[in-house]
């Protein structure tokens, strides 16, 4: 069990880069005023404040692995009803300042030293990307298997960076010409059996995705205690 993380306070970060991932999502690179070391899988809270003092805040998973810089990346899907996600996607520009607080979370985290299966659906790939990036940065890709499930190639985040021997992308509606698997939801053929002792499965996505994925994992010999889940609904992380 991870230890209690210290209390964190609000700080200001400057947007130093914005990259469009898909039609509905952008990655924001933020430089923190007070650099902080995060663990892959953790999240931050971003707070917006209006001139009359009204505030809105939401949690966002870090997409980047700790890299020794005072910068962090967040990938934010634009949800039509999402007050914060629409603002970030539609209004924020490089040079803007945002308030944030973190890192938060001591459960859905991977330290980079134990075998891990990463199962992500849609925008649920974001905290898993931090884990995959950590594995690659530290030369421990052998510890990781990553399976990312998205509707179509146009919905895939980090498309250029993802391919690698440890990574499989599953398309549910429309496959890329480069794949041989027919489009369709995750099935038991997509799930590796739990072979390594001490392996943990990290599952992140919608409720439907995480329920399907955990059922498949348990069918493939994974125990409930080997599975960590992070879920979000349409408004849970907007």
């Amino acid at each position, binding site marked *: 069990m991870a230890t*209690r993380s210290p209390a964190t306070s609000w700080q200001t970060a400057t947007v130093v880069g914005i990259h469009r991932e898909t039609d509905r999502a952008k990655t924001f690179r933020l430089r923190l005023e007070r650099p902080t070391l995060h663990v892959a899988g953790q999240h931050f809270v971003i707070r917006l404040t209006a001139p009359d003092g009204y505030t809105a805040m939401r949690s966002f998973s870090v997409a980047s692995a700790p890299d020794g810089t005072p910068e962090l990346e967040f990938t934010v899907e634009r949800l039509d009803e999402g*007050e914060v996600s629409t603002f970030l996607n539609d209004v*924020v520009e490089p040079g803007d300042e945002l308030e944030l607080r973190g890192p938060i979370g001591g459960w859905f985290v991977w330290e980079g030293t134990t075998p891990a299966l990463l199962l992500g659906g849609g925008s649920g790939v974001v905290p898993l990307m931090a884990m995959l990036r950590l594995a690659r940065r530290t030369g421990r890709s052998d510890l990781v298997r990553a399976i990312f499930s998205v509707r179509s190639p146009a919905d895939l985040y980090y498309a250029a960076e993802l391919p690698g021997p440890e990574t499989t992308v599953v398309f549910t509606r429309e496959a890329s010409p480069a794949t041989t698997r027919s489009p369709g939801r995750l099935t038991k053929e997509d799930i590796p059996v739990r072979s390594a002792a001490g392996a943990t499965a990290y599952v992140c996505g919608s409720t439907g995705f995480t329920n399907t994925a955990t059922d498949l994992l348990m069918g493939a010999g994974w125990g*409930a205690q080997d599975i960590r889940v992070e*879920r979000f*609904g349409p408004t*849970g992380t907007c």
Partner: protein
Amino acid sequence: MSKFTRGFTGRLHRERDVRLPPGQYDTGSNWPVLTAEPTPRLDTAQWWFGVEGLVEQPTRWSWDEIHALPQSTYEGDIHCVTSWSKLGMTFTGVSVDTVLAIAKPLPSAAFVLAISHTGYTTNLPLADVTNGRAWIVWDVDGQRLPVDQGGPARLLVPHLYFWKSAKWIASLRLLEHDESGFWERNGYHDRGDPWLEQRYQGD
């Protein structure tokens, strides 16, 4: 006071509902699901709920036995630490006062560790689950509590952030000292009062 964010007016939420604690928004008809573990399938034929620890009479109830106790309803709001609130909900079950009256807490009992059938835990002062402020519930808005929302039965402590309302509740263990639960060991506040914004350790 926080800094203004360039270009942000918050126009979607001009009329702020007085039932919303600071930093919370109204999720409307949505009820987001946030859990950390696989959803368990608990059969009500094997289900049980118990009160244990510092009590005169450790007690377990089956599904039928707990339904035979006097029922109690909560009508009001719930607040998740991830900043959504859901207003005007109705939960039905049994008051924690009712099960404690049967188990009879010892004078030394001051805290509660709520334990789920999954192993999830959360800690509360005993005073936060007594005097009509906590329930074991199995119906929400007239329907069976969905399994993703903690069915067949969950703890409901609506005056605290909702992670305190342990899903798939198995037992309340009465203790002399406070013992941090799952999220409390992972950075979240020990009490979690939404009106004081006690979200994380140190708030």
